[in-house]
């Protein structure tokens, strides 16, 4: 890696024990094993202590040197649903994209096939971070921990380390994806962590852009569209929550427009789809487009909430409890949507360019049904073989 040689010039504090101590001190503020007490405590007490102590560590001398090219970006979480769209978009717009991925036995080959550079680092190991930031102008952070792993390792500890490191190394823009309404639901761990991260970024003194998202259309395919096509049972809730789903490709596109827009600097934007949908509406739409009825199993939200309470009692089901935490949000009759007119105006985007859910699902079903038809035609010959 070319960057390794220049690493020596970087603030060594980052990797030094003292620095690590600072990180872990801030980490103690975060409620890793005090989960239960956190949730039962009054809202004020449960807020994380958010301070940025990165400024103290910044050596003033790094301002000089070869200026980084504004087209060099680092995407964190590049293999995710949104991350890969961000990478594609960036590559297509002519950026030099570096992707931070966890070291894995099977590397993210598709990113390299597209022309991105892949660097290995693990957010839960802060000493691996600085090398990846060398020569980077903008960091786009779309990482979220996988559901099966403890939420805090990546989402809080890792992010804090990354942001502090970005500050220390003079990253000129930090783009962070958060969740809409995350400040209103401190009882949901992921949302609380996102909210705290937002505050941490705002305090860090970086030039930032925070984008709050509502929901991705891509998630609906696996949740509803595929089961309906497979004639399997679809599980839905009777929750009245409405979510304004958005296409990840649109999110990526708007992100880059916002990122380059001076007026959006140090702003908190919320991206929402053109219309907010309830679960029932989405299922009905899928049924109509697929041309077959879904086998819907409706689970009352109360059951979810009860299960969550139940699972919280056991240490080994804690993660499950976290995952079910959104049931609180779902039952709260919230609408996950915002009027986008101001945002469109700020970014100079035409609202007609934003994909609607109807169109998205229609495209999906048209393509899938066509594919199935082709396959059926082929299978007539292959049947004999079997």
């Amino acid at each position, binding site marked *: 890696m070319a960057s390794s040689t220049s690493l020596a010039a970087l603030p060594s504090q980052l990797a030094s024990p003292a620095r690590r101590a600072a990180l872990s001190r801030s980490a103690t503020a975060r409620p890793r094993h005090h989960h239960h007490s956190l949730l039962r405590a009054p809202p004020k007490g449960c807020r994380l202590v958010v301070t940025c102590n990165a400024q103290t560590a910044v050596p003033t001398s790094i301002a000089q040197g070869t200026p980084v090219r504004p087209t060099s970006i680092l995407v964190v979480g590049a293999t995710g649903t949104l991350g890969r769209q961000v990478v594609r978009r960036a590559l297509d717009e002519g950026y030099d994209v570096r992707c931070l991925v966890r070291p894995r036995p*099977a590397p993210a080959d598709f990113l390299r096939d597209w022309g991105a550079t892949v660097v290995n680092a693990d957010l839960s190991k802060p000493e691996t971070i600085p090398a990846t930031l060398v020569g980077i102008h903008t960091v786009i952070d779309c990482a*979220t921990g996988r559901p099966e792993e403890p939420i805090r390792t990546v989402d809080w500890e890792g992010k804090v380390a990354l942001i502090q490191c970005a500050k220390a190394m003079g990253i000129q823009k930090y783009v962070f994806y958060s969740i809409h309404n995350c400040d209103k639901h401190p009882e949901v761990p992921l949302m609380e962590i996102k909210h705290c991260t937002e505050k941490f970024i705002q305090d860090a003194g970086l030039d930032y852009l925070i984008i709050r998202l509502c929901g991705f259309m891509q998630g609906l395919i*696996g949740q509803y569209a595929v089961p309906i096509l497979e004639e399997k049972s679809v599980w839905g809730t009777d929750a009245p929550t409405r979510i304004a789903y958005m296409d990840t490709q649109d999110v990526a596109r708007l992100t880059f427009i916002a990122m*380059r827009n001076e007026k959006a600097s140090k702003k908190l934007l919320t991206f929402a789809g053109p219309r907010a949908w309830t679960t029932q509406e989405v299922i009905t739409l899928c049924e109509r487009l697929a041309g077959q009825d879904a086998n819907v199993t409706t689970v009352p939200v109360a059951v979810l909430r009860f*299960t969550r309470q139940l699972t919280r009692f056991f240490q080994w089901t804690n993660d499950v409890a976290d995952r079910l935490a959104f049931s609180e949000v779902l039952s709260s009759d919230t609408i996950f949507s915002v009027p986008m007119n101001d945002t469109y105006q700020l970014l100079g985007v035409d609202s007609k360019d934003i994909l609607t859910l109807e169109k998205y699902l229609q495209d999906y079903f048209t393509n899938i049904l066509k594919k*199935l038809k082709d396959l059926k035609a082929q299978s007539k010959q292959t049947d004999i073989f079997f």
Partner: protein
Amino acid sequence: MAAAIVAARAPPGGGGAAAVIAYHHCASPSRALPLAAGPSAGGGVVVGRRYHHHGGACCFAAKPTQVAAEVDQGGAAEPGVASANAAVEAKPRKKARSRRGRKGKRSSSSETRTTAVLEEEEEVEVKEKKTEEDGEEGKRKEKAAGLDLDEVMAVSPVGLGRRSRQIFDEVWRKFSRLGQMSSASSTALAEEEQAVLIRGGPMCEFTVPGAQDTTVLVVGATSRIGRIVVRKLMLRGYNVKALVRRNDAEVIDMLPRSVDIVVGDVGDPSTVKSAVSGCSKIIYCATARSTITGDLNRVDNQGVRNVSKAFQDYYNELAQLRAGKSSKSKLLIAKFKSPKSLNGWEVDQGSYFPNTFASRFDEGIDASFDFSEAGQAVFSGFVFTRGGYVEISKRLSLPLGSTLDRYDGLLFSVGGNGRSYVVILETGPLADTSQSKKYFARMTTKVGFCRVRVPFSAFRPVNPQDPPLDPFLVHTLTIRFEPKRQRPGDGSQSATDPRNFELILEYIKALPTGQETDFILVSCSGSGIEPNRREQVLKAKKAGEDALRRSGLGYTIVRPGPLQEEPGGQRALIFDQGNRISQGISCADVADICVKALHDSTARNKSFDVCYEYVAEQGNELYELVAHLPDKANNYLTPALSVLEKNT
């Protein structure tokens, strides 16, 4: 090892997950038993898969099991070793996959991957397959699989437990998923399904239909524009070949992994030849690294010449392979190889001033079209009469089924003393010559043999009121010599009177048309070059452009303003012809134009300048330019180019 990593990707069952995995892992050998008892090993795998599809509701738990089962099949002799050794695992799995009929070159790259952690790609494949198969013959299959399942369960209580476990898993998965929003938090779960749509899938905004069948050679793939061009092509699913001078680690790092790298130099025709074979398009964005004349000539002039020649040769080879039936084949209109071939050609003479014909200044006209003893068809003579001309013409008889509208122009292979001639095409009903319309174009030859392309679009009606030429209606071809507008005699060449002429005809062919461009050349508009070398740079570039235009390939020449390194798609672009642009342009925008032009029929045979829209200072705006803003799903190129002149 397999078990450990599978556990990391465990289903949402939380604590229960580890147990499930452990179970699957143990279960797979036992599952291999009834399979091995089946009629044959090959059949066994199929049955196993059906069984699996039937029960495989939980993606996470299910897939590793499937892999394990296949491994056990492939390495039946030593199942214990197989599960321990990743390398051994990879091999049988690949075999199994090819048996499934998976095609495509991606599978070859999977050799390096270990089995346990499935790359999303494979997940997609598996999932896709599953979706398709399930949907396709769901019922029937379910039934068949159900029978197998019954048998399995009847003989093995393990199978029964396993089945119930899977059902519980699925229920639990769906249940716990309910507690989530479809937001960033559930990405990993939704990943398999939605990836179907994204990577090259039909719903991806980058997808170009037919891109998989198109191989694009990018010359100068490591240049500022070339790098972005390569990425854009990869994103859109093209097969990309990159011609680079050296294959250092540095260069290879710069290019996406699956790019086919060809080492060669455009200045060396032999390396170019191997690079172009198998390609259907070329994007040439190499440029000289210095402004030394030698470098300029090598890359910008001779390089373009070599590549376009090699590409045309390759096309000709293809055409020959298909015995003239290829879409790249030219249509033979006339071939002058025997005295007989002159039949049908009529020599005629006339004057533009019929009234003064045979005046006292008449010094005579003489012309003949003969087959010489040297085996050449020679049209020669002199025209001393003022306003006089001589011509040979023939009524065209095309082979059955071919019409000239499927051709782009005429190609003359001629020799002689380098006069210029007028080619006239006559259209209209054959029966009534009074209604026929004439179209003319000038053809300039060189001393000695040369090939001249006259595109149909260069023909202008003799009568300005007539509509533009429709090649479909052409019935007569005429080559006329007139002493007007001849270049002064080439001093050295025995300084002949410009009224003498000699034209040796070898053949006349029609050039095949194409909807798309074959060769995209990134040239430069000339602004932004250091002034003292500007002349030389432009001269070399111009020579290269000319070489390309003459090559007979469908070409697009892009002349960007000074390049800037910034993201593309931000500012409006101006497309223009004729050295009027003043602004810069980002490399990414130039790359985007190149990629878009590949399949744009309006880009064929055009040269154009392109730069950013000029933004006047506030209050100083004089006029508003019509600009084209690149946007999502907005094909700005077609409207921008359709107003520009062709064959420029």
